């Protein structure tokens, strides 16, 4: 019968799909280091397509990731997240901290053969601050009072007051003056056919499909071993994972489930190396401090004490992350390891709530004060299931201490315009990227609480304000460290956010690539030194 035939076909499909464990697992192959050799290609998967390869105009990750292979800045972060010279061989900061002099590297060539000079740096500076350039990155450069290029290999900038994040801002990709000067950057064809000084040169961009880069033979640090870098656009994570398993991708970031449950087979481990290190981001529950519910610090402390962060890391990230106590990445110099905020302790939470006047409960077991139940909504953005799951766990824990939480998921554009910008929210579940420079002026300073500014929860603490100003006003790392360590102590007491977790980055890379050195900065810091031994090359 037809139906029977069909059913058996479907069953066969299922079996075939489910027979993961059925295949004899090959023993993991121990691969030696091999001999470095030129050749082969690294195929990387990305959810999003870059919007433009002029990094000055781009604001998305994908654009910056690809552009980062093509361009160089004057400075960059090394594998330990310290600033080092890139196109600048070295730099001096004057005694008063106002003037930075960059000594540019000699003999660096643009991909079209022209020599890189201070003219390019000057052009990049000028076009960035040009009011006609639609860029999001002009502000750090606007602090510059004067910029001069005394000779072809020196570039000097003077600031009105010492400004520590200034140095980092010179990590901005330097653009080729000889191709752009006097032209409208917004319509430049360099957005699709970039020319840089970086380790890879642009070859081809097939819209919506892939971008191909080729090794720069004349790269100042030496030619990269891997001949081609191919950036494939695969918008769906499941598809990307299958492409990885089928061997059509060499590298992708895994989700915790993929890392823990789906790739722990000897077959996968023989073909791929998995890496794990803290990502530069944290997730938090932020409270609207203008809202009467959260005005009392004890209430916020109680909320933190009522939430079991370890459980969230375990449940949402399958343990692939760590509990956060403040806004910095564990292991970096700005991170204060002694700071611990409120441990999970529902008893303590109830006690703190009682002190704040939340004593009685109503018929549903919800705390009541002056006749009003303790009830609020956590908003989070659509498309991030980790945040949603976290919110659900928080909801359950808060219920246990008598707080009724609702969760609302909203599309990003509406989320920002209708809720955040108008201060129209009670609590939000969001995340921040942790930049290597610890200046968090925009997020915590009381002057940044206006509409569309980033201290949207309305946090105001005079001591934190002062420390933030002091921290960005000096280049002395020890002084800065003291400022930021103290800020973390204050935040742990104030609890404007409940800092929840720092997830791990979980990249998998095909085992044929050697020379990968995991470091605090991740794995791609030495991409030009990755190689595939001749006998294992496939492209």
């Amino acid at each position, binding site marked *: *019968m*037809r*139906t029977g*035939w*069909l059913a058996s076909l479907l069953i066969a*499909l299922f079996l*075939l*799909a489910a*027979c993961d464990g059925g295949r004899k697992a090959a023993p993991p192959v121990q691969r030696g280091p091999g001999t470095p050799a030129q050749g082969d*290609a690294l*195929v990387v998967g990305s959810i999003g397509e870059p*919007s*433009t390869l002029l990094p000055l*105009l*781009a*604001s998305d990750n994908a*654009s910056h990731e690809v552009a980062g292979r093509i361009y160089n800045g004057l400075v960059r972060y090394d594998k330990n997240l310290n600033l080092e010279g890139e196109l600048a061989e070295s730099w001096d900061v004057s005694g008063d901290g106002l003037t930075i002099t960059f000594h540019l590297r000699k003999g660096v060539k643009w991909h079209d053969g022209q020599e890189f000079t201070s003219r390019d740096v000057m052009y990049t500076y000028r076009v960035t601050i040009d*009011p*006609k350039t*639609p*860029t*999001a*990155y*002009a*502000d*750090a450069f606007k602090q510059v009072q004067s910029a001069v290029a005394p000779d072809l290999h020196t570039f000097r900038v003077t600031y009105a007051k010492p400004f520590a994040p200034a140095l980092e801002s010179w990590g901005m990709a330097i653009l080729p003056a000889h191709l752009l000067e006097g032209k409208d950057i*917004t*319509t430049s064809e360099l*957005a*699709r056919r970039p020319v840089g000084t970086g380790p890879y040169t642009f070859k*081809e961009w097939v*819209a*919506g*499909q*892939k971008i191909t880069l080729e090794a720069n033979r004349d790269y100042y640090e030496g030619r990269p071993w891997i001949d081609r870098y191919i950036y*494939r*656009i*695969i*918008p*769906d994570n*499941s*598809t990307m994972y*299958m492409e990885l*398993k*089928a061997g*059509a991708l060499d590298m992708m970031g895994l989700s915790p489930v993929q890392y823990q449950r789906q790739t722990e087979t000897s077959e996968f481990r023989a073909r791929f190396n998995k890496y794990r290190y803290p990502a530069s981001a944290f997730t938090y529950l932020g409270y609207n401090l203008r809202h009467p519910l959260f005005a009392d610090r004890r209430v916020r402390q109680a909320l933190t004490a009522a939430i079991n962060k370890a459980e969230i890391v375990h449940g949402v990230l399958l343990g692939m992350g760590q509990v956060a106590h403040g806004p910095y990445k564990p292991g970096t110099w700005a991170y204060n390891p002694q700071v611990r905020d409120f441990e999970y302790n529902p008893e303590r939470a109830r006690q703190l709530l009682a002190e704040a006047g939340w004593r009685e409960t109503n018929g549903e077991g919800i705390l009541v004060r002056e006749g009003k139940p303790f009830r609020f909504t956590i908003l989070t953005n659509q498309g991030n299931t980790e945040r949603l799951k976290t919110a659900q766990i928080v909801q359950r824990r808060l219920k246990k201490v008598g707080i009724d939480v609702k969760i609302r998921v909203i*599309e*990003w*554009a*509406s989320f*920002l*315009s209708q809720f955040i910008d108008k201060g129209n929210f009670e609590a939000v579940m*969001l995340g*921040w990227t942790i*930049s290597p420079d610890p200046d968090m002026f*925009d*997020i915590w300073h009381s002057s940044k609480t206006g509409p*569309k*500014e*980033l201290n949207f929860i309305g946090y105001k603490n005079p001591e934190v304000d002062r420390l933030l100003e002091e921290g960005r006003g000096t280049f002395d790392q020890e002084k800065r460290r003291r400022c930021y360590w103290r800020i973390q102590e204050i935040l742990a007491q104030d609890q404007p956010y409940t800092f929840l977790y720092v997830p791990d980055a979980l990249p998998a890379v095909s085992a044929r690539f050697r020379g990968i050195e995991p470091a605090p900065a991740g794995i791609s810091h030495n991409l030009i030194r990755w190689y595939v031994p001749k006998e294992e090359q496939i492209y």
Partner: protein
Amino acid sequence: MAQYLIKRLLLMIPLLFGITLITFTVIHLAPGEPVEMQVAMNPKVTAEARERLRKFYELDKPLHVQYVKWVGRLSRLDFGRSFAPDGRKVVDKIRERIPVTLSLNIIALVLQFGIAVPIGIFAATRRDTPLDKGITVFVFLGFAVPTFWLALLLMYVFGVKLGWLPISGLHSMGSEGMGTVAWLLDMARHLILPVSVATFSSLAGLSRYMRSTMLEVIGQDYITTARAKGLSERTVIYRHALRNALLPVITLLGFSVPGLIGGSVIFETIYALPGMGQLFYMGVMARDYPLVMGILVIGACLTLVGNLLADIGYALADPRIRH
């Protein structure tokens, strides 16, 4: 006839205006602004930078001024530049996406009609037999199974486990160096899975429709007459019944034409196909006004043209409409 045509064409002018107005209003009613999407939650951006971007995109001007400017450009067939940071022309963005969507949809449409029509006839002539029921189950299975799930399952089986077919995308690595024939074959291999899933999931409607119109026709008196004349069953079905049963199906085909440039977001996302669906979706998410409005206007115009062609067709066939 000429008079009728002129009247129809003139009627399209206010329609087009209405379309631009509605398109413009709808996208501007959506909360959020393109600039927001680019700079929100970025500590490196100040209010001044935000204003600079708004000015660049002319979002600081009153809405009616923005509308007039946009319609003005549109009347010169200039769709403007995208609000995405690349600032490319909307037309270029659409042009590079349309071939993929169009060819995928045409292939799927041809297959869909090519399979559903015979299936429908087959089922109708064997009404209530196990074969008819089997077909019913089969087509409804395609209708009911979530596309994304089936797509992933097939990718896993044929791409990962068996390794017979590529999983996603349009071309293999190294397709640049292939000859034309090899290049086409490579692309065809990439299209097998998406086209099969698209076809399978859309068989139900059409084949059921074919089956019911066929059954209706078979019940008519003239079929009984034909049979009574002693014609063979084959001639009765394919010469007499089929012709009449096919007419409504051809109307359906006409309706499918405007849909040809629309792509499915889920589908294109799973198979990493750079088509119109994704372009539109991304445009909406980023509030890329010129792009979204451009796609909507082109889609609406195609529908208008499709309707016009259908009307002309009717007019040619039926003199009563002409007058």
